[in-house]
């Protein structure tokens, strides 16, 4: 029985890795930095570190990352975003990018300087909030349990983070590395009861 479980787990892991290396995975995505000089040809190292730069925090995170950095003026209703957002913002806030990634692609650069009021929920905001608690009882939102049970959108720590909607590994093959297709605004309507 145990061996069957191991086999199943191995199979799943193997398929996942295969998928990750396929066109729908990170290899075919813009997150494949293996051709960048600084990456040393390693598609994973840009984010997950190397053996010489051991991980500092889960999941196998780059030791150089300053995870306690404060982003912007009011990141997500005064609450600091979780790992699921800070990992992304490390590059995508345009201020601490490891290289000039964000500058080269203005659209994926979410700098507080470029967008005043960035990440602040409330008046004047121009970005979907991250690091916010998912509403518990609100007729405008579907119940968190149902959202999670559908398997696409995740709510790490009960919060909305970048990775709630975006999969940095681009496993779904959707544009913008969305976790699921947004046809008929399905991704938006996963949470928003509109």
């Amino acid at each position, binding site marked *: 029985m145990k061996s069957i479980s191991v086999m199943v787990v191995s199979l799943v892991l193997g398929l996942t890795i295969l998928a990750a290396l396929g066109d729908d995975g990170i290899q075919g995505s813009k997150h494949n930095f293996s051709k960048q000089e600084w990456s040393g040809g390693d598609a994973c190292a840009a984010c997950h570190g190397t053996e010489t730069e051991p991980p500092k925090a889960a999941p196998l995170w780059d030791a150089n990352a300053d995870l306690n950095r404060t982003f912007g003026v009011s990141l997500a209703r005064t609450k600091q975003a979780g790992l699921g957002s800070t990992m992304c913002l490390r590059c995508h806030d345009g201020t601490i990018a490891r290289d000039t990634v964000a500058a080269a692609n203005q659209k994926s650069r979410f700098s507080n300087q470029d967008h005043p009021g960035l990440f602040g929920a409330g*008046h004047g905001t121009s970005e*979907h909030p991250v690091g916010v608690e998912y509403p518990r009882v609100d007729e405008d939102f*579907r119940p968190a349990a149902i959202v999670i049970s559908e398997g*696409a959108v995740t709510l790490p720590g009960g919060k909305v983070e970048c990775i709630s909607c975006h999969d940095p590994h681009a496993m779904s093959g959707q544009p913008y590395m969305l976790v699921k297709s947004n046809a008929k*605004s399905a991704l938006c309507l996963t949470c928003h009861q509109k």
Partner: protein
Amino acid sequence: MTNRNSESRIRNDESRTIPMDRGIFRHSPFAIRHSGFAILHSSLALVVLIATGYVLADDSVVNSKHDLSAQGPGPVRAVHENEICIFCHTPHNAAPQVPLWNRANPRTHYRIYESSTTDARIDQPSGPSKMCLSCHDGSMALGNVLSRPATHPIVMTARTIPPGTTDLTNDLSDDHPIGFRYDRSLSNADRQIRAPEVVTMELPLGAHGEMHCTTCHDPHNNELGEFLRQSDQRGAICISCHDLNGWPSGSHANSGKHITGRTVDVGERLKYDTVKDNACLNCHKIHGAQARERLLRAQREEDNCLNCHGGAVANFNIASVIGKRSAHDVRFRRGIHDPAENPFTMRRHVECFDCHNPHAVAADPIGRVGGTFGQTVKGPNLHVSGVTLSGGQTDNAAFLYEICFKCHGDGITRSRLGDARQVTQTNTRLEFQPSNPSFHPVAAPRRNNDVVSLMPPLRVGSMITCTDCHNNDDARALGGTGPNGPHGSLFEPLLARNYETDDFTVESANAYALCYGCHIRDSILGDESFPLHRRHIVDLRAPCGVCHDAHGVSRGQGNSVNHSSLINFDLSVVSPADSPSGRRIEYVDTGRLAGNCTLTCHGLTHIGFPYTGRGAGAKSVLSGVRR
């Protein structure tokens, strides 16, 4: 619009037949797609669930008119784009206004709503309203969203919102006002606006308490049709803010009469079937009203009323009586009446609204003209402005005559064509003053005890109303079949019954039917009061009006000696006589049922000619008349 709403109602009905938790099922297609099973019957179930899921989603933007995606239900939709939220929202790089707005604001300068009766300070629309107007003013392309390059907008079946009821254009003066602060100062200034704190939370105001499109409309929820937040049936959404005097008990809020006609403006059927269900919508159009000020459906004031009161819906056909020989013909003038008008300076006109408040009108169950019944205003005239007996203005006339005084009193509007009498007064307010030497008891009980001719239940001390004498000649209160009230009559000046004023009229019950309605003919002709009535009226064929002034003799002009008993001689018949004290026309009251006259009439000269009556059964002494 009506068609759309009936569709919406039908969809509602369908949805009610399937008891499912819409909140869970409406997104079921997405959940089920991940199940991975693909056997036939589950696929069928999937299709059914998708289908029902969307049918059920009346309270969702999905499949509503605001679903502009390529799968959207309306004729206006994207050609390829299948996202729904994108037309208004984007998660990143949104316009700097909540909620993650994906459109630029229109730069349109709008013509805004104006009204002489509003206390609100109405500004150009702002905030959420501008967001709505970014499509609904028709100026901006529907597919122009911030998340797409301006050079590559979303391709739509229509570039901008097509002309029609939903295209508000840059003229918002025919739409319910937005962009004003709904605060205590407004509700304090206008007592017919509820205090903002008691307005339901279902109708949210803006960040600074201002009214927006989104106060009434929820762009994501079309469950009630027209994306309304509350139903407009029985005016529910309107009366959440508007606290109209007399509305709850008024006929227009409670009449179950079926609307058989069509709207007066565009000829559509009204949204609901009965008067009470249509409520405000009977007369008002919230967007695109033909009469901009006060958002009335019809440009001509009276058309809003006659649409139903012209024989189509209401019991009585007012249109049939306002064309009579003597009438308050409301069709005659247009665009003059203003609810804020000053009765002393307004231009001459008459509209339905001068005497009736359509918010408060109610049936008069007694419906009888006259006598002791008619003192205070009844249902049809509730909550109408007026001028009081002392000449002050009131927003809420307590007595019917106060409504009449608006036009027939001090103002420049009254008729100046008074009869040629000893004392001429065309200001009816002055004619009916209780301090006058004599007056018909409209504003106060009569002080004269000599009136022995009154028909019970009238008695000395009874009061009457203007409408006892001025009324439709076929008013049902008079035994006819037409509507009550001074709308129109065969008899001038708008008299309830015939009243001859020509000299040498042959006396008959009909000739002076107006007078005989209250004053018993047999008593008059039996000389029970003035002992020479029969002599004058029957024998010499002098009409009542030769000696009597029907309204009254005003205090400043007449005195109680010469003008008691409404004596005010008609100078076209009566001429002066040479008396020892000079050439004069004079009546002198010398006590109860007694007096003397100095005048010339029908060639007969009276010089201090005396009479004494002895009440009922009395006979006069015919002496001293000089032929």
